[in-house]
């Protein structure tokens, strides 16, 4: 499982970071973001790439789990 820590970054950077990480074609990823727009953008991109996304929020930070 690869973790992409995109906390502190705003759109479109978290998606670019994830896209780069996805070149490894792992079956699962964890993405950390800290704003709702990034959560939506990462979710949309991951779903488009064929992953299912589950999100957990704590203290304004989101942990997104991506699975193929």
């Amino acid at each position, binding site marked *: 499982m690869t973790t992409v820590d995109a906390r*502190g970054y*705003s759109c479109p950077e978290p*998606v670019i970071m994830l896209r780069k990480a996805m070149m490894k074609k792992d079956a699962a990823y964890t993405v950390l973001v800290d704003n709702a727009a990034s959560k*939506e953008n990462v979710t*949309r991109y991951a779903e*488009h790439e064929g992953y299912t996304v589950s999100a957990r929020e704590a203290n304004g930070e989101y942990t997104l789990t991506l699975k193929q």
Partner: protein
Amino acid sequence: MTLKNEKRNMIFAGLVIGVIASLLVLFGNPKNMGFCVACFLRDTAGALGLHSAEAVQYIRPEIIGLVFGSFFMALAKKEFSPRGGSAPVTRFVLGMFVMIGSLMFLGCPFRMILRLAGGDLNALLGLAGFACGILVGVFFLNKGYSLKRSYALTKAEGGVFPVLTLAVLALLLAAPAFIHFTEAGAGPGAMHAPILISLIAGLAVGALAQRARLCMVGGIRDLVLFKETKLILGFAAILVGALVCNLILSGTTGTSYFHLGFADQPVAHTDGLWNFLGMMLTGFACVLLGGCPLRQLILSGEGSSDSAVTIFGLLAGAAFCHNFGLASSAKGPTANGKAAVIIGLVAALVIAGVNTFKKENAK
């Protein structure tokens, strides 16, 4: 929220925003300028005495409304999240150049759409330049461009910008002698909808734009970067909403709100090359900032200090534009303005290069 719902909300927000922008002209704003974040910040800078161009001085309530529409919506949705610290001085400088590019063209990306919706074909050259600027920005994004991360800040820090905005509203309402307002008939600054209508329009658009994450530069950027169409749907929906409303108003009021062509367009000039280059600078610098001027206002309402600093950069840029004779007029661009746009393009290239091709990966 599913993608389908997100897109539906974006189209709805865009259509409503387009209609509101068109109606603001009916209520008194300059033609094709229901909204223009660059022009309105420039007018506000003039009212505060940061420049002394008497034709463009007015505290635009739409700006205040946009910040508070976003602020209240962010609070309601628990998305108010003060943060900052991502290259603030660089953002200030980029904000200045966004303004210089916008005032070469005479409009921010938002007004560019509204100019198209009013039949101003000069905006097509602006749009072409804007798209080119975004493509250059995307090139650097793909190569690793980043202004590095921001950090969480205190609620107090996040509240400073909304309080400042409130103070500006107080200055508008109290209108003390040191605040400058364009005299009736003396220029676009004197053309405005009643304060309450402008304020409500700003609040509504600010709230809608916050929910939809509307961004004019993000539309073309995300389409190129990720083949993602959500943001560009908002861009298109504003155009359709404003165009249809302009045509309806033209048919029902006896005044023309749609005039197709290049010549004699309101608050515009016909120099295609500089319309192109002005918006190229704006598009490029906006990608480097992560969002258009409207989006910066919305983010500042959500607590972003980085976006608030960008707004200060836009205000300073507006002051320079008029103090140094950089802003275009209906007669066309100025020699100083052309030099400033070239300097801006070079500066943006340097900023992009330095923040892309660096050896260290400082956190």
